[in-house]
């Protein structure tokens, strides 16, 4: 097994060990922290597909995270209030079923990514960044100005949504669900990286003109990557809203987009387990230093600076050595 494989296995084992350790140490709050880290990692895996494989520096990924969150919030709030989501031309009821909510979150955020991609991929570089940021801000202010779903105050859900055969109110079972989804998405990412699509996307990032010469459209490749990326981040948003039983415009803010990007950069851009390492590190730092100072992000900024300057492969790169793309 390669060094990176060992690092990945160690990260996976650490996540598997969390519930056992939490029970042994009588620290149930650890499970909530780990769930938060796993959901952040899921969102960051989504961004890593666009950023690491496609070279798309998106500062608007919170749009997809927020859409996933609102998909959960809207469906669940209608279900808990026994009011239909819409009555004409046909009635659609709300739902408290996680699989249905996930499906809606994935489809809605994937569709949003498709629309944003169709417009933003006409540009590149700083213009692409600005357009994704602009979409993010548009959605943020739209959510604030939408009183039907809480406006600036957000939307609370009384009881966590359900999953067949599981008690999602049990933190360990909910953690297991989130962890299972993260593993599934990591497998998908690994397969994508080795697939002809992933290779062509990687090539399009390097030399778009050469990719065209072999009959591939770099913009279409990037669009597909952005849709997959947005859908995964949307799924993470639905889980995050379920974890907190609350969704607010904060999930759509540009700070959220920045945080998702920080997870990827700290962990290692284009590294399979980079987002897992980055999100885990972020949540750990927030937990350990958050109690010491409310300005704990100063230390995060310092660390980010060190990673960008001296460890291009992020935490995984430091532990496993440089990869060919670093």
């Amino acid at each position: 097994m390669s060094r990176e494989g060992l690092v990945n296995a160690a990260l996976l084992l650490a996540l598997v060990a969390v519930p056992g350790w939490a029970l042994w140490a009588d620290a149930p709050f650890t499970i909530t922290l780990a769930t938060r880290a796993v959901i952040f990692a899921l969102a960051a895996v989504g961004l890593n597909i666009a950023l690491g494989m496609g070279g798309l520096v998106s500062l608007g990924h919170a749009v997809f995270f927020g859409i996933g969150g609102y998909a959960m919030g809207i469906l669940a709030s209608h279900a808990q209030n026994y009011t239909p989501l819409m009555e004409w031309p046909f009635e659609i009821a709300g739902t408290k079923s996680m699989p249905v909510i996930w499906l809606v979150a994935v489809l809605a955020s994937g569709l949003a990514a498709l629309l944003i991609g169709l417009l933003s991929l006409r540009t590149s570089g700083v213009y692409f960044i600005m357009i994704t940021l602009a979409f993010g801000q548009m959605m943020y202010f739209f959510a604030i100005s939408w009183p039907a779903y809480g406006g600036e105050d957000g939307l609370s859900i009384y009881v966590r949504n359900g999953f067949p055969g599981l008690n999602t109110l049990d933190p360990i079972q909910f953690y297991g669900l989130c962890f299972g989804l993260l593993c599934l998405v990591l497998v998908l990412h690994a397969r994508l990286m080795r697939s002809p699509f992933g290779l062509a996307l990687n090539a399009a990032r390097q030399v778009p003109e050469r990719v065209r010469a072999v009959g591939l459209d770099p913009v279409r490749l990037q669009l597909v990557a952005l849709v997959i990326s947005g859908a995964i981040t949307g799924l993470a948003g639905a889980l995050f809203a379920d974890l907190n039983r609350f969704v607010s415009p904060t999930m759509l803010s540009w700070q959220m987009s920045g945080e998702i990007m920080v997870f990827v950069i700290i962990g290692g851009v284009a590294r399979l387990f980079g987002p897992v390492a980055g999100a885990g590190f972020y949540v750990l730092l927030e937990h350990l230093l958050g109690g010491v100072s409310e300005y704990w992000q100063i230390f995060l900024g310092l660390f980010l600076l060190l990673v960008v300057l001296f460890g291009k492969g992020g935490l995984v790169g430091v532990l496993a050595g440089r990869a060919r793309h670093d």
Partner: protein
Amino acid sequence: MTLLSVTQLTASYGASQALFGVDLEIAEGEALAMLGRNGMGKSTTVRCICRMMPAQGTLVFDGQDLSRLPSHRAARLGIGLVPEGRRCFRDLTVAENLLAAARSGHWDMGRVAALFPRLGERRTQRAASLSGGEQQMLAIGRALMTNPRLLILDEATEGLAPTVRAEIRAAINTLKRESGMAMLVIDKSLKELRIACDRAVILERGRSVWSGEMAALSHETTERHLGI
């Protein structure tokens, strides 16, 4: 049957006109040599055929008008390009370079490795770590993996060691003999082109000034237009 027909092709780089009227035709399975001194418009003609730059004139490939197609659509019709300067995907391995371009058809990894055994030996090696000759083989292999009907080789042996050059020319001759693929070849060695190609077209100052059978290319013609 004519596969590619180029008529009165003109093209410019900004205000500077590079092509003033290029005419050429390539039939199915035919190898055409494009000759000319440096800066006479050979690579520009290739870029226009591959739709990598705007051009005026008529460009018809297999009965389809190329002039309104983006470059990737032109490539999908069956035009495979081995560009000047190789330009492999440096971060990808040899196998990944080939796989990224692959389309179903006669040419697969096994056949490319049989044509260039060195590539087979270096399947897992990064393209950036290959020698110039191996990168050139990879560029040809990558173009073959798209299973083209017309293979364009733009200075495929430029700047390579004589032994590697011979290896690549042998592969080109094999392609000509065994694949039945049409080829447009740009190369500095007239001697080698005489072996590999059926016909030739000579460009001078952005115009095609001579075309005909390779056997009909006389010493006087090459001296007048190519200075050799």
